[in-house]
């Protein structure tokens, strides 16, 4: 899952090597925390959060097989 999030984000940013995704499992949900290079923050959020919203939609759809709820935390 982390690998997938990384592959989605990397082509969208200028500093692909600074894309870091960490997994954090809690009692009833899995939180993925995403950090990118400070210059790329705008690129993963987009105008009015459109890109962030699209990323979340795709990630949640893929994660729907898992039993736990998943969250994507950006920055």
């Amino acid at each position, binding site marked *: 899952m982390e690998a*997938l999030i990384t*592959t*989605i984000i990397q*082509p*969208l940013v200028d500093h692909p090597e600074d894309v870091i995704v960490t997994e954090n499992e809690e009692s009833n949900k899995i939180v993925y925390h995403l950090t990118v290079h400070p210059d790329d923050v705008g690129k993963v959020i*987009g105008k*009015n959060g*459109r*890109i962030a*919203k*699209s*990323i979340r*939609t*795709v990630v949640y*759809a*893929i994660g*729907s097989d898992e039993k736990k709820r998943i969250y994507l935390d950006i920055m």
Partner: protein
Amino acid sequence: MKQVTASGQTLDDAIQSALEQLNMSKDRVDIEVIDEGKKGMFGIFGAKRAIVKVSIKEDPIEQAGNYLKEITRSFADDIQIEIKQEQNNVTFDLSGEKIAMVIGKRGQTLNAIQHLVQVMLNRHSTDFYRIVVDAEGYRARREETLKQLANRLADKAIKIKRNVTLEPMPSYERKVIHSMLQDNPKVETHSDGSDPNRFVVIKPILKK
């Protein structure tokens, strides 16, 4: 990026040799000349071989296709992608067993994937491309549904003599509704709200 460095007695020989190694035609590569080479005296003394660096030109559409493949592979392994291009309009048609997963509720997952591919493609190329990600004719089916919905709600608006508002939709879906009801003299349509919650309003034209 794939690239090779090749040498030959003349510039053309070097390029030819590089193309053979890459198995590519000349129009799909970038050629950088490192040394033009020298014939030398009688072709023996002081001859220098020509050296070129040849790299495969990256096709942004192919890259977008690969990106799309990476994403869809997480849904199911067997998803096929067919790419069609007409000038700057590119259509990626997906098909496979678990396609319903990729489309999502009212196409929201498909729309999100389409948005990401659009952003990615236009970041990597100088031209602007308009892309459509379709899944087994989903877009055409949705258009048909929207047209029926438009007619049904127009009738309803006329009957109850009140405005009828539709649920929020992306711009190309609203366009289907507007163009369907454009020729209907009994109603007017406009959009209200701001993206991504912009929606169509169908307004009956009341006789005075």
